[in-house]
């Protein structure tokens, strides 16, 4: 039998294996992508109600006598006035049949705890409102919100339902009279954290993440690139350099919580930097991302054709000049890839921030890198741990915001990478 025939005979089996192999490759990708889609759909379906806000329309009487202030009162006085009164009065007006104490409490909880502050802020803005009657859309309580969105099933027997028959009846009455409206939840993007689901916003966490990542980027990018340049272009071959290399590789494998311990011991305790601040969070995360960026940058620098270096040297450029004028711009796309992976990791990280006090309830929006703040993944973590059911949808919405952040960051990097990519 000649060779050609032997080969021919083997072919059928080999081609079967080939197809099998290719199919396996395709299946792997499809599996991974399906999984991603599954996760994303899960998040999106859970998140969408968070972007809708239920409001209750009430006509309040801003009676000077009840509030104890008038249009001339200063801000301090308005601040300390009790704005619950007009709201409660309005509710009682709508449902005059409610008389018992306990029932009243239930009734008052139709509007959010934030409603009084909503009213107060309106009055501070425009003191002329005092003494007038106003029809205002107040934020609804999370239970009302849940009933309207259908998260609480009205058909369940009363014993299994969180919102009892009385309250449900009121809600339905308000609904029938058109006093309940829904709209896009701008508040979610404009407010800081709150313990009331309907009032909780993501702005503080978004800014916190932004500040933290800016610090991380500002520190880790230049340092990592400098380190990579040194190790690739200038480092002599000796034990010290070997030691640096081993350390960098090892740091890539250190669990992130250990970086938190480092941050606590060194930056907060030793250098007495502020707790809960993006500056410390950023430093800790940048230490964590350094190895990733260094490793990626080194391979990018390695991949720059030596001819480019030689061309510059041959013209009388110094080594430093050849590196900064030619090698670095050429390696930038690869460096950016490493940066993006590192920053994505930093964006989603919680554990190290736990140790430096960023797992915290912070309502005020951070104004600078030294103000107390949280970050998006921690907000997710905190909300996921809250007893109130209304936080379930907020949690998913926060995850969506985080993913949006991630994708936006990636898109910028991919754009930059395209821009710097040059063919030779």
């Amino acid at each position: 039998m000649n060779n050609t025939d032997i080969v021919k005979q083997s072919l059928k089996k080999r081609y079967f294996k080939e197809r099998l192999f290719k199919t396996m490759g395709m299946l792997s990708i499809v599996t991974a992508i399906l999984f991603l889609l599954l996760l994303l759909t899960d998040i999106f379906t859970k998140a969408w109600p968070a972007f809708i806000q239920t409001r209750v329309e009430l006509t309040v009487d801003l009676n000077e006598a009840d509030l104890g202030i008038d249009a001339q009162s200063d801000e301090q006085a308005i601040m300390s006035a009790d704005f619950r009164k007009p709201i409660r009065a309005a509710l009682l007006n709508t449902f005059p049949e409610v008389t018992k104490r306990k029932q009243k409490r239930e009734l008052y909880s139709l509007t959010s705890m934030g409603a009084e502050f909503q009213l107060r802020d309106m009055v501070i803005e425009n003191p002329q409102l005092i003494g007038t009657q106003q029809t205002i859309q107040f934020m609804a309580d999370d239970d009302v919100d849940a009933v309207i969105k259908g998260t609480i099933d009205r058909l369940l027997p009363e014993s299994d339902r969180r919102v009892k028959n009385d309250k449900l009846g009121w809600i339905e009455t308000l609904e029938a009279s058109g006093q309940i409206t829904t709209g896009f939840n701008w508040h979610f993007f404009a407010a800081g954290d709150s313990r009331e689901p309907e009032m909780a916003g993501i702005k503080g966490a978004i800014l916190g993440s932004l500040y933290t990542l800016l610090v991380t980027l500002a520190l880790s990018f230049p340092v990592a690139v400098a380190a990579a340049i040194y190790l690739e272009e200038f480092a002599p071959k000796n034990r010290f350099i070997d030691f640096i290399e081993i350390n960098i590789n090892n740091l890539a494998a250190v669990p992130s919580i250990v970086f938190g311990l480092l941050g606590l011991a060194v930056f907060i305790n030793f250098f007495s930097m502020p707790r809960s601040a993006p500056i410390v969070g950023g430093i800790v995360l940048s230490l964590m991302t350094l190895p990733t960026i260094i490793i990626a940058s080194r391979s990018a620098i390695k991949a720059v054709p030596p001819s480019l270096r030689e061309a510059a040297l041959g013209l009388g450029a110094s080594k430093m000049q050849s590196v900064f004028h030619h090698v670095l711009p050429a390696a930038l796309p690869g460096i950016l890839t490493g940066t993006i992976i590192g920053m994505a990791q930093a964006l989603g990280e919680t554990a190290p921030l736990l140790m430096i006090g960023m797992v915290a309830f912070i309502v005020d929006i951070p104004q600078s890198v030294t103000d107390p703040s949280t970050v998006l993944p921690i907000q997710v973590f905190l909300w996921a741990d809250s007893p109130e059911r209304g936080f379930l949808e907020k949690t998913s919405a926060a995850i969506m915001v985080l993913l949006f952040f991630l994708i936006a960051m990636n898109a910028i990097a991919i754009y930059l990478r395209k821009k710097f990519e040059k063919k030779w």
Partner: protein
Amino acid sequence: MKVQSNRETEDSLNIEYTDTVGQPLCDDPKISTRNVDVFYADNQAIHDVSLDIGAHQVIALIGPSGCGKSTYLRTLNRMNDTIDICRVKGQILLDGHDIYQKKQDPVLLRARVGMVFQKPNPFPKSIYDNVAYGPRIHGLTRNKAELDDLVEDSLIKAGLFQEVKDRLHAPGTGLSGGQQQRLCIARTIAVQPEVILMDEPASALDPIATAKIEELINELKENFTIVIVTHSMQQAARVSQRTAYFHMGRLIEVGETDQIFTNPSHELTEKYITGRFG
């Protein structure tokens, strides 16, 4: 041309090397090298080469692959410094000054002894910026107008200006291979070096591009001293005044190009020239 298909065996090539045949020295040397040895770690790549490079001349270095042509060339402007394991022994004098002495700054040296590489390697920048790079880092011009002039001048000298004058700010990497190589030459000329080293500058190019480069070399020798490495004997014959033949790290023979190609003195040179190997 005589076609030979019988081959010497390996052993017959192991000839005892004596001194270089021909006239390695010359009257008006721009660069003189004396007893140069080059090592890559423990591996000696150049053995005891002494050779003068005459001013305003073209000298061609030829020899089989791996014989050390590039290595020798790169000692002349200390490009070998960039290779960690490379060590150079012996004396190399540029205008009588040792270029390997401590005080010599290799950067300044390379500005005086420019280099053109085998593969065209323009920077990923515009044509203008490619040529302007050298003058800029050395501060050769005082203002934009002077720089413009210098760039134009260099491109003209390199015979490229007509082809690119309308797209000076287009990327240099978008040129054809031959144009790129001329761009690299223009870039080297712009620094106004005294010597230009060329390592197989046309080996990657098609015949038409090669022809242009060779024309250019002929013109450049008026102003510059040129050392060219080539694997094409025809090319060596066309462009050089002197030719040096290397073999296994040794300089076997040097002489007038005509003489080397028509009447080589050393057995090895003759074998190489007549195409019995290489």
